[in-house]
């Protein structure tokens, strides 16, 4: 064998003679911000070694040096396309330590944005999935339809992706006046659209061939690997944080958790489609609730009772220049001190269970925040599911787990 080029500073790993090592990523269309060492024997992958960390921006460390409130935008950058779901457990955990419970309207608003985010995130994942299989139309459609929901989120929060919406004790804005009918229109539009998605993508014989029976994870294997989210529901496991430990307003809403038994890539794609349907239901219900109830109770009293009149005017839409129904933050937010204690919280983010462990020692910065994002728990699947498949299955499996490297790298 010829000597591999010797480059200083480069880890040289021995490679079995009969295999051929392909490095996929980071500057590769078939990988996101990660590298996968794939060893192929002919066309069959024999060893897959995901090498992650290309987007590791040291959030856990930075969080230990920053004020509590500043960590919300920080953690949001993990997966900006799923911003509300990603920051919500942090907010919840801190609320648990503070022992406050946000008012119901705030809960519904959070739920609403979470579901909008979930749809946007699923559509993003489907779009990327499509482009992995060479189906550019699905990519474009998913991104086009995602814009509908991004637009909704923008109407609600004032930013396309990085909403920084939930804050301790409440949320930052209330819905604008025209939001309910817009949301309903969007929901109806999306339902029709999903049928066309099924026609051009999921039921397309070409795509079905690529996905059926590929990357099969059965119940026990999925449990052993600790896969989360829609992926695990595609394997027939009834686990969804919204189901087992309802948070925010989820225990008051009527929706289903779609479960599939097959556990292959196709089922994983279908779970997401069905979840989009359910999320549309939830959005409609939440919007109904918000419309029926008066605009009050946006923020926990503890942070709001001393608010001056100006703040209330802005909230009630009497002054409108940087958005109506805006919650002004009290200056104490800037240097909030949280009592000593520790808490964990989990929510069902777009890609699965999002888990935070927060420990405070009574200072104005956290003592330790441990973040486990759904994608981080799914990485292990690549290592154990891919071997034995063909090289061309790599994007199919990779895409079906709905990758988002910044999320797993944190």
């Amino acid at each position, binding site marked *: 064998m010829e000597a591999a080029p010797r480059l200083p500073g480069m880890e040289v790993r021995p490679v079995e003679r009969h295999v*051929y090592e*392909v*490095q*996929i990523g980071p500057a*590769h*269309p*078939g990988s996101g911000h990660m590298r996968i060492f794939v060893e192929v024997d002919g*066309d069959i992958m024999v060893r897959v070694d995901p090498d992650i960390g290309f987007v590791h921006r040291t959030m856990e460390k930075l969080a230990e040096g920053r004020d509590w409130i500043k960590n919300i935008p920080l953690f949001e950058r993990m997966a900006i396309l799923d911003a509300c779901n990603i920051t919500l457990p942090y907010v919840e955990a801190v609320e648990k330590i503070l022992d406050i419970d946000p008012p119901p309207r705030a809960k519904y608003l959070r739920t609403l944005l979470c579901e909008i985010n979930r749809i946007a995130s699923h559509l993003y994942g489907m779009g990327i999935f*499509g*482009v*992995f*299989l*060479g*189906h*550019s*139309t*699905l990519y*474009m*459609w998913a991104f*086009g339809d995602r814009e509908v929901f991004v637009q909704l989120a923008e109407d609600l929060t004032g930013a396309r992706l990085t909403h920084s919406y939930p804050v301790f004790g409440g949320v930052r804005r209330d819905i604008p006046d025209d939001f309910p009918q817009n949301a309903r229109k969007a929901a109806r539009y999306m339902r029709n659209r999903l049928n066309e998605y099924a026609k*051009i*993508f999921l039921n*397309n014989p*070409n*795509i079905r*061939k*690529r996905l059926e029976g590929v990357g099969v994870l059965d119940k026990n294997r999925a449990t052993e690997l600790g896969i989360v989210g829609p992926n695990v529901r595609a394997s027939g496991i009834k686990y969804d944080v919204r189901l087992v430990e309802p948070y925010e307003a989820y225990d008051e809403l009527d929706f289903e958790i779609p479960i599939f038994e097959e556990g292959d890539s196709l089922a994983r794609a279908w779970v997401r489609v069905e979840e989009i349907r359910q999320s549309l239901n939830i959005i409609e219900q939440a919007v109904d609730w918000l419309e029926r109830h008066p605009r009050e109770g946006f923020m926990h009293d503890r942070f709001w009772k001393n608010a001056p009149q100006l703040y209330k005017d802005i909230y009630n839409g009497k002054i409108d220049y940087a958005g109506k129904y805006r919650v002004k933050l009290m200056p104490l937010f800037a240097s909030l001190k949280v009592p000593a204690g520790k808490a964990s919280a989990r929510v069902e983010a777009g890609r699965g269970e999002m888990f935070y462990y927060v420990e405070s020692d009574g200072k104005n910065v956290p003592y330790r925040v441990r973040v486990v994002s759904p994608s981080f728990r799914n990485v292990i699947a690549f290592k154990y599911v891919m071997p034995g498949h*063909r*090289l*061309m*299955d*790599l*994007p199919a499996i990779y895409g079906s787990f709905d990758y988002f490297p910044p999320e797993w790298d944190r």
Partner: protein
Amino acid sequence: MVTAAQVAYDVGWGILHYIIFYPPLYQLIIIPGLIAALVVVIFIIWFERKAAARVQMRYGPWEISPRTGGATQLIADLIRYTFQEIIVPRTVDFMSYIIAPNAAVIFSILPLVAVPMTSVSQYWPIPMDFSLLIAVALSTLSPIFVVMMSWASNNKFAVVGGVRESFIIVAYELIAVISLLAVVPLVSTFNLVDIVQVQMGGRWLGLLNPIALLDAFIAVIMSTSAFPFEIPDSESELVAGPYTEYSGLMYGLNMGAGYIRRWTLSVLITLVFLGGWAPYRPGPGVVAGYLVPSLIVVAKAVVVMAIMSFLRSVYGRYRLDQALSLAWEVLIPMAIAAFGISIAETYFGVIP
């Protein structure tokens, strides 16, 4: 009296007639050869992008010339490629690296000299007795150079892409050969001119044997690795397949070679199944006898190619082994069946 104008006219006519319309030159370089192919490829890539954009809720190339819908986009791309640096990596085999794409282009257009563009024997580049056979045989040569390209690049993605290309050749070649030759029993000849003449009355062979047409169509898509068989340069695992290391105009050439191959085979399909210059009967003279029929063929072939390009917006790509087993379990039996249909039609005298 001989005037200067007359001389000029004669000389001009002479040049036109003996140089430009000299059949090999005309067919290789002008229509349907390099120049027509260039125009068509530019149009088709533009069409491909625009059609996909239409399906995909957007505009596609537009700003460059809003009035024509961005039709000059590909010209800009071509010029940009021309004036870009050509990086030759240190690890490549230089001569093969340079030669392979050029040879691929040449062998892609070579079948075009074996096809007639008119029924006037004066304008045949070669004797037409075996033209179908020669064209089919020549069209199988150019993929070899894609493999050579990938091997010369000495890049992992390129080599994997090259091997996939060779497997795809294995899958498509038999289909293409059988389905293109499946019309032979109906006409009892390899002469493409005769084949076109038979179809003059609107009895296109594609209608007599639609399965063969479908199969040939799919084989062409496969052979040029277009969607849904875009396997050799499937970008999600192999970055650009065999072309990964090529930059500048060399890459343009590579991409062009694939499209030119598709163009060549489309012309062949047009002649064999879609009646060639069919409703039109070539008259005497260069224009009526050569230019017009060749333009008709070009027009038909462009339509064929446009349909192929449209599939990009509907399909993803197959896996390599799926494409292979699809070829062996569905398409080759289909092609053999189409062949049988032709023989049976002959036997039972469906066509007089």
